[in-house]
């Protein structure tokens, strides 16, 4: 198995997802299965092909440097569990 339990622990930590000990082994098996299935793509020779970053043949759209958004702090803060004086208020994070 390419993807072991330790890798799942690490991925879960980076993604801030709490995974119970009992779930680690089955999750590792599942993820490894998915990766193995996708890995079939490696059988194709793509050495002469540029990476495809999009399925649409379009140019990246641009916007002009114009201020035409913002100015609605109450809507920005509407979903916040807690606010103070126009700020989001979150559990303290300190260096």
């Amino acid at each position, binding site marked *: 198995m390419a993807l072991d339990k330790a890798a799942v622990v690490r991925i879960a930590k980076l993604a801030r997802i709490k995974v119970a000990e009992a779930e680690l082994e089955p999750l590792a098996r599942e993820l490894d299965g998915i990766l193995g299935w996708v890995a079939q793509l490696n059988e194709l020779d793509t050495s002469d092909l540029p990476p495809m*970053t999009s399925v649409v043949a379009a140019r*990246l759209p*641009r916007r002009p440097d114009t201020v035409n958004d*913002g100015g609605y*702090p109450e809507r*920005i803060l509407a979903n916040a569990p807690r606010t103070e004086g126009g700020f*989001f208020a979150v559990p303290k994070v300190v260096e």
Partner: protein
Amino acid sequence: MIEGASGPWEVVIGLEIHAQVISRAKLFSGASTAFGAQPNTQVSFVDAAMPGMLPVINEACVAQAVRTGLGLRAAINLRSVFDRKNYFYPDLPAGYQISQYGQPIVSRGEVVIDLAGGVARRVGITRLHLEQDAGKSLHDQHPELSYVDLNRAGVALMEIVSEPDLRSAEEAGAYVRKLRTILRYLGTCDGNMQEGSLRVDANVSLRRLGAPFGTRCEIKNVNSIRFLQQAIDYEAGRQRDVLEGGGRVVQETLLFDPGEGVTRSMRSKEEAHDYRYFPDPDLLPLELDPQWVEDIRRGLPELPDEKKARFVADYGLSAYDAGVLVAERETADFFEAVARGRDAKLVANWVTGDLFGALNKAGRDIATSPVNTARLGQLIDRIADQTISGRIAKEVFEAMVETGADADAIIIERGLRQITDAGAIEDAIAAVLAANHDKVQEYRAGKDKLFGFFVGQVMKATQGKANPKLVNEMLRGALSG
């Protein structure tokens, strides 16, 4: 190089600079970038990472990055790619920063830094890429809470990475100053370190001369050149002590504490970062039209190195004076406005001497100078046409700063016009010689040094207004007679 008990160590420094792009709107949204607004009033749903919102790139920010790349004599990559850099922090609503990883918009440039003794050195630029700034967290407003303001979230930054080409705190300081000068000339970043428009991370390591690079530590987010230099000196000393004590330098992220003058480990960063970069599926690759880049190149202003070379060649200034004058574009423009049609060296002396002194004293910059270009020009014209002597000119200048009047008004009002009338000077000389009979004898007996004394007396008798050249000539004649 720093000395150690076991011999000298070479200090190796590379800098990463985050420069806030000058633009009206953010990199991927139409919210304003203005500094100092009420919290969360300059935030769009894109910046707040509301589900379903899509980023659309601000073309002016792309132009600023290209302009900066050209100013750094770098390669402009006509195709670059935006990636997501994934990490969690309360002031990063999306859980990722849109940045450029494998294919930045600019690579391989250089900055020439000016060191003591007129030495110039090239510092390589590895790359410049565009990315979003994060929001701002305030940790000192509440005992249990941090406050988050997203006004800055999504503002365009240029991350400018240098090669590990710097060898001392002084060189690092010179590099930041020069880069800041270039950015200001280009108008792509205001360079204001207090407001956080320019932030510096320093990578520092030690090695024996000629040996491979040692393990580096990264000092994060230094916000002044003085602190940067202190942090580098402290960190180099710390690493030397570790190495000479038989230990190994551990790669870590540090914060500089300006109060204590020490660097400290950022524990939160000890967990090795794994940003899991991948191309942002919301953004197509950024492709630039070569003609568009060429148009930007043609619109570049004269840059500090070129301006300095021109000041030396065209005005005959010393490299040092030229360097001082071009450090700020406004100063260089001021100098040129005054120097046109005048003695440029004299103008340079006035600008870097008396004018800078007066600005320092008043705590002003050249844009709000109490003496404008026309008035300084008039003062220098009065020296050139011998209305006043250089010495009196200093007095006139001080009065100009104090009163706001122009040179001619002050010269007339205070009766400072130079005495060029030979008769008047002759009278003054005769009076001085008559009053100092004994000294005249001594001088004639061979005590040449007394000449200065006689000059001083004649100048005093004329309230400093006598033409010094005439005084010298006539005094020499009178004393030898």
